[in-house]
């Protein structure tokens, strides 16, 4: 039998990735404008899901305030773009850095909190950011109406206008995110995350700086959310505090868990469940949320580990099955 490490770094043949890339590039061209827009939105949520996955899936921390950093990224880009006329795509490093910095300063003091206590603090961050945006903090966020008039993104002087063009722009970012996340997963930091998630005490005993590793997960994940925020702002060109509410954080959290924590494919499946499925349910009109709720409950009962669980997590869980019995069932 191959060792655990050998098994989880086996890479699928390149042609699978190429085929997926070609299919994902061609299919939206055949859709109508409405579904192209849905595809763009799904792309943004995939980036959000991938970034949240770093915190929830890899480092194993509850984060129910991811929308805060999504919002910070969006507002940073929008404010600089509107007031100083800097092209929006140039602001990618700025949005990422500002969101990452916020994440650092907010999470560093509370990183020692455990499980549900950490979860509530992240919810509190999300709400604080939303209320601050709504109350027009420093007079630059535009209050409850938000900001409008954000410039379209341009690539080499070519303005991106139609949903399909946006789709291709987002597609590039999705591919880049997957690349970065995969590299991270197998890096020294990625392995440290696994260690901290599975057994923080043991990790610390083996010399892993758990505080640093956990803060790193928050900073990297939040920077990703910041970029997603920038993409959202450039796509809709109007942003308001309610776009970054607690419900958004919940949707992102569901994307990660529904698909299977720690799994990149899982994020795609989860996004399909939480973003595309409600659009399919649209004919149900007012009852859409109810059916989404039913789907969430049923999917969890049928597949409690997520629809497409991470192979690596599964291996670890199976290997440690005997030790899991010692703990209370929940």
């Amino acid at each position, binding site marked *: 039998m191959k060792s655990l490490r050998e098994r989880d770094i086996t890479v699928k043949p390149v042609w699978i990735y190429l085929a997926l890339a070609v299919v994902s590039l061609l299919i939206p061209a055949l859709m109508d404008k409405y579904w192209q827009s849905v595809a763009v939105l799904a792309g943004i949520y995939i980036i959000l899901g991938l970034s949240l996955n770093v915190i*929830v899936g890899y480092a*194993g*921390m*509850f984060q129910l305030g991811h929308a805060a950093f999504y919002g910070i990224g969006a507002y940073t880009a929008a404010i600089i773009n509107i007031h100083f006329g800097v092209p929006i795509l140039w602001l990618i490093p700025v949005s990422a850095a500002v969101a990452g910095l916020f994440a650092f300063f907010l999470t560093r*003091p*509370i990183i*020692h*909190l*455990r*499980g*549900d*206590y950490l*979860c*509530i*603090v992240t*919810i*509190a*961050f999300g*709400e*604080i950011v939303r*209320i*601050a945006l709504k*109350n027009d903090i420093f007079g630059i966020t535009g209050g409850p109406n938000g900001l409008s008039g954000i410039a379209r993104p341009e690539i080499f002087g070519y303005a991106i206008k139609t949903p399909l063009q946006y789709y291709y722009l987002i597609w590039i970012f999705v591919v880049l995110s997957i690349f970065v996340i995969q590299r991270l997963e197998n890096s020294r930091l990625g392995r440290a995350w696994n260690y901290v*998630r599975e*057994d*923080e*005490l043991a990790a610390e005993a083996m010399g892993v700086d758990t505080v640093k590793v956990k803060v790193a997960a928050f900073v990297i994940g939040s920077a990703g959310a910041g970029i997603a925020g920038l993409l959202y702002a450039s796509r809709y060109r109007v942003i308001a505090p309610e776009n970054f509410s*607690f*419900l958004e954080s*919940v949707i992102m*959290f*569901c994307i990660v*868990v*529904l698909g299977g*924590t720690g799994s990149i494919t899982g994020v795609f499946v989860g996004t399909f469940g939480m973003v595309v499925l409600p659009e399919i349910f649209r004919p149900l009109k*007012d*009852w*859409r*949320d*109810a059916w*989404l*709720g*039913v*789907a*969430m*409950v049923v999917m*969890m*009962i049928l597949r*409690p*580990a*997520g629809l497409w669980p991470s192979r690596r997590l599964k291996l670890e869980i199976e290997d440690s099955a005997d030790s899991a019995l010692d703990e*209370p*069932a*929940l």
Partner: protein
Amino acid sequence: MELFVQQLINGLTIGAFYALVALGYTMVYGVLKLINFAHGDLFMWGAYLGWVALTFAIASLFENSVFVVVPAFIFVMFTVGLLGIVIERVAYRPLRNAGRLAPVISALGVAFILESIARNVFGASYKVYPPELLPSGGVGIVGDVRINYVQLALLLASVLLMAAIYAFVQFTRAGTAMRAVSLDHDTSRLMGINVDRIISIVFLIGPALGGIAGMMVGMYYGSFDFTLGWVFGLKAFIAAIMGGIGNIPGAMLGGFLLGIIETLGAGYVSPQWKDVIAYVILIVILIVRPTGLLGERVAEKL
């Protein structure tokens, strides 16, 4: 000074509601280690069912009388409690051995369902509790400070309920079993405790308290809509965490504390920022005491 005392009284009243809802979160957390995100929506259903009961009772059964309120309370208690038991059976029990995350998603799913049904059945507009039902006026305490009858009655009722719950958990057989289950399911089972039954009891009491609180909030503010669950539920959850989740006196303390902080913040700093003040104080408390005011330190994993 008078303003301060008045704010304190208002804060205590709102805090009592938070405390009742927080009890539901904390009891469920105690036995299942699950954040029951559907609890806020059960609370909202309490507000709707109370509204239905009162409006119906006034329209048909009784004369316009304060005594209608008592049967309405009992009705709300039982229906929301039953709803809680059903939800546990259907959405949480199958996931009892599925780790920490799956039940959270299931709870969020149930929350979506409850909210959507409420919105579709009752409509998106504000519902108004019959205003002529409740006595107006109040008693003076010191100087111009007054506590009105509604406030007094609601405060009294909440404190009585909390005392009853505390006595139940501390001194009855079922309460002792409940505390045992919250420590360890397997050992409890070995001691002859029917764990499933105890969990069902918790899912009867918690939502029943939440439902009553919903009706009280409806009566106190006079009107509400379907978004009540999210907003109020989140606050009550914060109260539960503030006091130390899983700890029953902690939930009560957290509830009152949150209510007072919020009202004082709204009165003295700015109503727009009152929630932010509450959240910041929560974070400060958790930095100083990482498991809440009365919580004990326990190792846990996601």
